[in-house]
């Protein structure tokens, strides 16, 4: 073993190097279809959106041209956009909090070891299988003051004397929009938390029982901390999704009455496809995208913190 690298060894090294290069090339070729689609479907439109946001682009008006920050100035000076932002945050905050609360309750209910719980779980999860647009259409029919079931039964049971025009008043329209979202997405939260609950180990609970904890303190001091990462996951996913809500509100209220339930997404849609002011809509889209990415970053940080606490 005193001789220097023989020609054979050198050749071996060469082939191994070329094979690793080959491997990389193979990897890239496998990735390239997905990358191409991603480029065409997401990256390119985003870049184009950014480009358009600095231009005057009106589908009805005369010619297009570079206008600098004018679109952004218009976005920030429009009171409608500000009210849209407020509506969006209001919608997200109330829906997500309700979904987490109800979802936790539902998960605790379904976590009991009864034979009926499997059937119940299946029933509770049904809303997840309904397309948002479909559930919005059904809600609209249910809430109709003339022939909807909701007003009919409320009157029948003597809770109200005159039918309520749910979608005709700002407050009740909000109730309807949030109720729809909560109805549709609470099972999703419950499902995540149920998975979390089934993973809470028995021993710390038993240790806490022996340490003197009753059911409430057991939940508060042991179960809830173990659930924290799952609550964080549900919170992050629901928050991101809630910001993106469009179809259900579009169908249920179309942002009305007036613009009371007009969240940013509907606002962008109206500017772009009703006013045909694509430049301003692009600018608003870019601003919303930036805000959303900042929020997402914060949410992911929360998620990271809550998961490493439980790591052993």
């Amino acid at each position, binding site marked *: 073993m005193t001789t220097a690298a023989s020609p054979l060894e050198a050749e071996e090294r060469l082939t191994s190097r070329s094979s690793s290069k080959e491997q990389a090339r193979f990897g890239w070729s496998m990735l390239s279809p997905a990358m191409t689609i991603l480029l065409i479907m997401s990256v390119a439109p985003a870049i184009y959106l950014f480009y358009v946001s600095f231009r005057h682009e009106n589908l009805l008006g005369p010619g297009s041209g570079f206008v600098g920050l004018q679109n952004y100035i218009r976005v920030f000076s429009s009171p409608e956009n500000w009210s849209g932002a407020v509506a969006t945050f209001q919608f997200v905050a109330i829906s997500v909090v309700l979904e987490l609360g109800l979802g936790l309750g539902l998960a605790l209910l379904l976590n009991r070891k009864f034979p009926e719980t499997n059937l119940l779980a299946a029933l509770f999860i049904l809303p997840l299988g309904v397309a948002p647009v479909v559930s919005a259409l059904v809600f609209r029919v249910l809430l109709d003051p003339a022939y909807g079931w909701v007003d009919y039964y409320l009157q029948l049971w003597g809770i109200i004397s005159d039918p309520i025009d749910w979608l005709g008043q700002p407050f009740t329209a909000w109730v309807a929009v949030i109720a729809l979202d909560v109805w549709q997405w609470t099972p999703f939260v419950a499902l995540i938390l149920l998975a979390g609950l089934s993973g809470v*180990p028995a021993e*710390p609970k038993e*240790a806490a*029982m*022996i340490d003197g904890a009753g059911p409430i303190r057991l939940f508060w001091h042991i179960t809830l901390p173990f659930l924290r990462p799952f609550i964080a996951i549900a919170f992050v996913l629901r928050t991101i999704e809630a910001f993106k809500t469009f179809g259900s509100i579009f169908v249920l209220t179309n942002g009305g009455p007036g613009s009371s339930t007009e969240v940013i997404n509907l606002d962008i849609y109206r500017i772009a496809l009703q006013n045909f002011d694509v430049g301003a809509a692009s600018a608003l889209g870019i601003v919303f995208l930036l805000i959303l990415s900042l929020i997402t970053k914060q949410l992911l940080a929360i998620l990271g913190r809550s998961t490493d*606490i439980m790591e*052993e």
Partner: protein
Amino acid sequence: MASLGIQNVVKSYGVVPVVRNVSIDVADGEFVVLVGPSGCGKSTLLRMIAGLEMLNSGKITIGSRDVSGLPAKSRDIAMVFQNYALYPHMTVAENMSFSLRLKNVPQEEINRRTERASKILGLDKLLDRRPGQLSGGQRQRVAMGRAIVRDPQVFLFDEPLSNLDAKLRVQMRTEIKELHQRLRTTTVYVTHDQIEAMTMADRIVVLHDGIVEQIGSPLELYDRPANQFVAGFIGSPAMNFIKGHVDASGQTFVAETGAEIALKDTPREVHGRTVTLGIRPEHFVLDAQNGLASQVIVVEPTGAEMQIICQFAGQPVTAVFHERLNVRPDDVIKLAPKPEAIHLFDAATGVALR
């Protein structure tokens, strides 16, 4: 501190009986070890004492209180679990003081008791760590600390050492025993390891298939096992058993192969009876005159002693010698059991005959 009474306790899961009519009295300050093979019901019994499982019938008392129907939190006991069962989101100090905080004990008192327990266990430098940052032995100590700060009536240990490596296990064994000598808290300790049982217990309860086989001090169990199961379970390496019968005179045991072993002081009732002879590995001697010729199969020197596995009266047996013998596989040695150390068991029921 208090005595602990277990009276006619029965527990079954569905139709499967797990604990059948068990009665044990643990004196105030006593260290009792429940030992038995897996599935013998020892952990279930411990969990019933803790209040984590309910009894089907029977009674459990702590001091003069009947606790059979009380929830775990009202029994004033502390338990150390096999996998420690620490609260992963709490620091060591928070883990130890959790029970005191639940009882709204004043902060100074909490600090005082946590400090005392952590000093006893050498945890004082780790109080701000979380369980995830501790080694197995340290976690075990925290679990014990959590029990100590409670100052409970009874300590329960559920196989607390089985997740530790061999060296640490021996060390913690000593520590737990030392701790008991210091605190004198009534303790029930569950293990499947008979060496742990022998070294730690004031008294051992041997459980098998949900019944008590024998209760006694470690040496009582070793010297006078009540039946073949206890004889085989207590002691390491295990007792050797040879099937055969006692001759009519009661002077000789005749193995199934026809080999003869001398007996001493046998009771009249065993004369002429079919029995199982039991002899511990350490009770063999080399006897050039009266010994049975036995072919050596394996020699295992451990340094302190030599274990020799050889063919004796038609079956492999283990013999232990403290002197160093120059023996090799296939050698033939003359082996004889000490007549006064021979145990006889009824061949059918396994009950000791003496």
